[in-house]
């Protein structure tokens, strides 16, 4: 009885530790800019500036800045309309490769999506 009791406490503690560890990992991913297929556009920058995704992923850019921006691929593969604050643009990357892009209004803003 006592043995099983200790076992279940240990098991609970281990599970708890496991949840905490997972929680930590989740928080770290969040610090990079929420989910792994989203790019936040804010303060004249793309975050994350470099995003790696598996082929077939749909990436969504959301403009959180108080100025309009665009998302335009250097090689003309994709191009958003002008995104005002809170507007979004999505593109599905079916082919592997490196896709550099920039804001055509403020060309110093650059980013890339690496598709594996």
């Amino acid at each position: 009885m006592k043995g099983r009791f200790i076992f279940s406490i240990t098991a609970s503690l281990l599970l708890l530790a496991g949840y905490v560890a997972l929680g930590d990992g989740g928080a770290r991913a969040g610090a990079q800019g929420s989910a792994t297929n989203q790019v936040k556009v804010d303060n004249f920058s793309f975050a994350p500036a470099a995003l790696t995704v598996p082929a077939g992923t749909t990436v969504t850019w959301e403009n959180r800045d108080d100025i309009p921006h665009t998302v335009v691929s250097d090689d003309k593969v994709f191009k958003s309309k002008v995104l005002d604050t809170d507007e979004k643009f999505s593109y599905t990357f079916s082919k592997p490769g490196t896709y550099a892009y920039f804001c055509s209004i403020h060309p110093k803003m650059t980013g890339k999506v690496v598709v594996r």
Partner: protein
Amino acid sequence: MADEIIHDHNRDGIDRRGFLKCMAWAGAGAFCVLQGGVLKSFALGQLDRHPASSLKGELSFVQISDSHIGFNKAANPDVIATLQTAVAKINALPTPPAFVLHTGDLTHLSKPAEFDALDQVLKGLNTSRVFYVPGEHDVLEDNGAQYRERFGKDALGDGWYSFDQKGVHFIGLVNVLNLKAGGLGNLGHDQLEWLEKDVKHLKHSTPIVLFAHIPLWSVYPEWGWGTDDSAQALSYLKKFGTVTVLNGHIHQTMQKVEGNVTFHTAMSTAFPQPQPGTAASPGPMKVPAETLRSLLGITDVDFVRGRHALAITDSALEPK
């Protein structure tokens, strides 16, 4: 108060120290006029004490910039009201301007309703002559087709042109199209070729005024405040005695004198932006409502025939 030339080291009729002193006063609202080679300055509040003839130059015009009609965020929820204040200020100038130059970002999102609203406000100007160059916010989606339809009927290419006024040669350039990833403003080969031809046969004594949206000198490249191929444009103007470059885009006044070229940027009539490197990005800068109008303004430019020409005076919509 009037200052006269004390030091004329370059023997060009300009007391540069006096000129710089005048520019410092200009921030507080001084009116500087060059008359017969003598730089005279008058505090804006005391202009009515001087006879009108002592304030006149030969050519007077006003630069406004970055009206961003359509912008409605916290930095200024009513850009039409502040533009109207600027119009009233222009109409109240002691020397009526011959025309107004708008150095771009007329609208915020290139929408037809925004262009229409701008036209309506500027109809309130006493002078009906307004010349424009587009900003990057005026050429969204259509590479500037709508802008050119409204304001560039007599222009060439992407919207460049030149005209003469009282012997001064004005050149409007477009440096907001065909921007490359990671790049700055861009004039492009065709426009540069046209510029070279446009000024080739002008006399060296012709005062030149160049106006374009993005600064034609390197103000702060990290924030896109510069033009990749402006050096080539300026090389065509080396022979001229006086070149004045008027720009916008950065929503604050900045001035640089380099040899025969005076570079100047104007305040916005919509919202201020931070000074280079003082913020995370060059976006709209929120300030307390009561100080907003002290950071927006117009630029009055006066030219008097002589060896050196233009006196540039910035004044805010409201004193600090």
